[in-house]
């Protein structure tokens, strides 16, 4: 391993080392506060490690890994998201769990898995990253053992994720059997040479899509999402919604570009059908829910559908749109889960619609944040979500995807309804004389400050998106 390799993979290595050190720390002395502080520090150091890595880009670690602008940007995004989720976790676990230190092993480990995904360009590294991510998640999802839904969610995820990994492996094997390559560019070249996709490879891609689709939570591989979101601890749910999906999406983009996916109509159609189905199923089922965690789960299925529209547009703008949308979506999702975390008490999570009834008049500040997050998810101006959706629609118009765009418009309107319903719930004035039992939220200070920062970034990106757009445009240089 050369020096350049070492520096380029700096963020990854830093975080990995930190996990080992914090394991030793726990072995010496169990102390929640110290472990927490150390993990925060680790994330910060990993974030700073991106700066020296920028000197060497573009850099490849053949044949497994690639570090270019695109992967560094997403590395930063994943690390920042992980950092924020960590910030929100402290109080949540302090109140609930006796042995909370192991959480700080699993979360950075899962993040590392996502980081491997972000830089991988080979089946081996893809699978490694995926498994590091998944196996840490099994533990994370079932972390609150005492809760009734926690075990169920953990086991469900374990079985389904193992199944999907098996499909992924089989798919990879089929692709390898025909093309003789496991690195993405090699596969792309082999396919181009053949000039068509043979049935075996197509079947391989189909099976890989099952594995990838499971992680992304797109229809028809979405069944796990609502149950896991409901059963997992809230910070973990935020992690699954953002980092786990984001990491997978980055690999998918890289793979699709490397094999020149747009040249093969079959693959395009497969993804297009999945996109439309995700939008409709996600939004439609979200309409039926009374539980906010489940609403967020279904809405994230729909959001993946929106992202696929930009993905399928096949133009440069589409890639930029995905990156911008991911940033907006990360902020918004973490913010929304952050509100849930802040509003939950040590006894129960604030998750039903009823818990939020009239919240604006009791906790105006948190309600305002939640409103901003929901409006961003719905894509209403002055929020980052609006610019993100605008960007996606723009990519779609640029690529002449009229049908997909109409589907997107219809779904935006459906989506609007359930977001608005939550907002209306918060602004409902309680009827006089009606005595309601509300959850007494913990309202931790750190959580509130994090939410404030997230809201500021959200509105900042909504009002002045130029800086972020320029950054994204610059970093859209992918090694093909």
């Amino acid at each position, binding site marked *: 391993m050369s020096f350049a390799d070492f520096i380029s993979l700096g963020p990854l290595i830093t975080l990995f080392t930190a996990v080992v050190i914090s394991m030793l720390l726990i072995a010496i002395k169990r102390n929640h506060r110290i472990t927490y502080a150390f993990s925060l520090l680790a994330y910060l150091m990993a974030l700073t490690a991106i700066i020296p890595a920028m000197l060497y880009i573009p850099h490849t670690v053949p044949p497994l890994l690639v570090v270019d602008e695109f992967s560094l940007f997403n590395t930063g995004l994943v690390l920042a998201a992980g950092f924020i989720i960590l910030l929100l976790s402290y109080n949540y676990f302090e109140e609930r769990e006796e042995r909370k230190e192991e959480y700080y092993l699993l979360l950075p480990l899962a993040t590392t898995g996502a980081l491997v995904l972000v830089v991988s360009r080979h089946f081996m590294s893809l699978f490694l990253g995926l498994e590091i991510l998944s196996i840490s998640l099994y533990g994370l999802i079932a972390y609150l053992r005492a809760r009734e839904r926690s075990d169920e969610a953990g086991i469900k995820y374990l079985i389904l994720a193992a199944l999907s990994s098996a499909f992924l492996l089989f798919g990879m094997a089929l692709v390898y059997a025909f093309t003789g390559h496991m690195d993405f560019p090699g596969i792309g070249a082999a396919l181009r040479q053949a000039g068509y996709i043979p049935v075996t490879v197509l079947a391989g891609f189909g099976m890989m899509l099952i594995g990838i689709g499971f992680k992304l939570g797109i229809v028809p591989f979405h069944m796990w999402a609502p149950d896991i979101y409901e059963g997992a601890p809230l910070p973990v749910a935020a992690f699954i919604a953002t980092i786990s999906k984001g990491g997978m999406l980055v690999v998918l983009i890289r793979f699709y570009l490397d094999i020149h996916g747009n040249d093969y109509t079959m693959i395009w159609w497969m993804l297009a059908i999945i996109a439309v189905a995700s939008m409709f199923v996600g939004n439609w089922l979200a309409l039926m829910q009374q539980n906010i965690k489940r609403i967020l789960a279904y809405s994230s299925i729909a959001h993946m559908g929106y992202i696929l529209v930009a993905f399928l547009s096949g133009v440069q703008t589409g890639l930029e749109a995905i990156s911008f949308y991911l940033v907006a979506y990360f902020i918004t999702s973490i913010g929304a889960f952050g509100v849930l975390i802040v509003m939950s008490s040590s006894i129960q999570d604030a998750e039903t619609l009823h818990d939020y009834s009239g919240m604006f008049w009791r906790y105006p500040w948190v309600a305002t944040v939640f409103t901003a997050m929901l*409006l961003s998810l719905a894509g*209403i101006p002055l929020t980052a979500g609006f610019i993100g959706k605008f960007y996606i629609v723009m990519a779609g118009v640029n690529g002449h995807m009229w049908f997909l765009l109409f589907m997107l418009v219809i779904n*935006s309107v459906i989506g609007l*309804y359930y977001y608005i319903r939550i907002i209306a719930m918060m602004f409902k*004035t309680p009827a006089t004389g009606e005595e309601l039992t509300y959850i007494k939220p913990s309202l931790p200070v750190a959580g509130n400050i994090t939410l404030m920062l997230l809201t500021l970034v959200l509105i900042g990106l909504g009002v*002045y998106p*130029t800086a972020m757009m320029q950054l994204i445009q610059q970093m859209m240089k992918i090694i093909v």
Partner: protein
Amino acid sequence: MILLLLILIPLVGGLLSWIAASRSALWSRCIALGCLLINLVIVFQIWATKPAAGGKWLYQFKAAWVPHFGISLNLAMDGLSLLMLVLTFFLGALSVLISWKEINYRVGFFHFNLLFALTGITGVFLTMDLFLFYFFWEMMLIPMYFLIGIWGHANREYAANKFFIFTQAGGLLMLLAILALYFIHGANTGVYTYDYFALLHTPMQQETARWLMLGFLTAFLVKLPAVPFHTWLPDAHTEAPTAGSVVLAGLLLKTGAYGILRLVLPLFPEASLHFAPWIMLLGVLGIIYGGMLAYAQTDLKRLIAYTSVSHMGFVLVGAFSFNPLAYEGVVMQMIAHGISTGALFIIAGALYERIHTRNIQEMGGLWSKVPVMGSAAMIFVMGSLGLPGLGNFVAEFLILLGSWQANRWITVFAAIGLVVATAYSLRIMQKVFFGPSHGQHVLPDLNKRELVIIVALVMAILLLGLYPQPVLNTTQKTDYVVR
């Protein structure tokens, strides 16, 4: 710079008003009123001094916003925007005044929403950048949603959701059309921009232009509202608090009409000509159908809401007759309708405050008890049915005169709408103020604050009717509308 100020004052004022409410509701109301009055003075000042100078664009302001996409903070004001802004701030200030007693909880948040909605409306009237237009267009929806949803009457959530989803659906189609226009322009000229003036001369195939025009038009027809898209309006109007109804009827509907004049006609002249007969037909349908539905209502606010559908039909007929006379009429109608319908809603609100019902079957014989209110209502009802001497007459007369040259049969049917208007207008007066008295209401007449509001509105509608020349002059100056 002054244009930016016109947008910023209500925005900042809204925030201040929200903050001030924690101290005292009175301060909150005063700040809101003050901001709108300042703006009103500014636009009056411009109106008084500038038209004499002539020229198409009174003010322009341009600053980069998202240069990456060719989006700029591009504001400009011509006669049409000026008149609309005068109306906006006039009705805005009155809305604050009428909610003085009606709104007594969450006062700060109410004023924040009201001013925020007005900011969006102001933005729509001033912006010359299509992205920004969409931005402001969407921006006014959320506060309007809250105004209806929080301070509205019994069925408020249903009405608010319906309003929001209808307008949002229309808006998204407009977004698609805007983006398509952007890319077509970019592909043809190599310059990617949302600048209105640049997009005006986008060469494109007629087929494409027609589709894009329909995208824009849907958004505006929903807002206007034209007949198949009108169902959100009665619900929203009925459930909204009085100030909300006034802003909805007086201003929000006008953004639809403004959009047609400013965007649809200039951007797609040939496509507009192609669809003109059909759209005029929609307008006539709205006039007659809206009028007939109005006649059938028993809920006073709902009745007035349907008259709006009827009156906005005239706007549609006038806008698509491609004729300077009709355009003057359209602008006149936008203003006169804003004032007369706004006033009727205020009177309905005042009545509701006193007798707690909006059902006109339960009213009757109120004239003897509240003569001042009655005579005020008389004036506006007469305005609504188009009696000469009041603003609406001038407007409808000009529209019919103009559309006669465009399409005779349409005009004939539109004129029949005037008869329908007479029927429902007289029914309001008969049922509410004359006839046998049902309840034993003891009710006070208009108080001083209400009197100020009503007198201001009466003066405005009379001025429009008796001396419409200043408005017409300003409209004529903006020949940009008519191409």
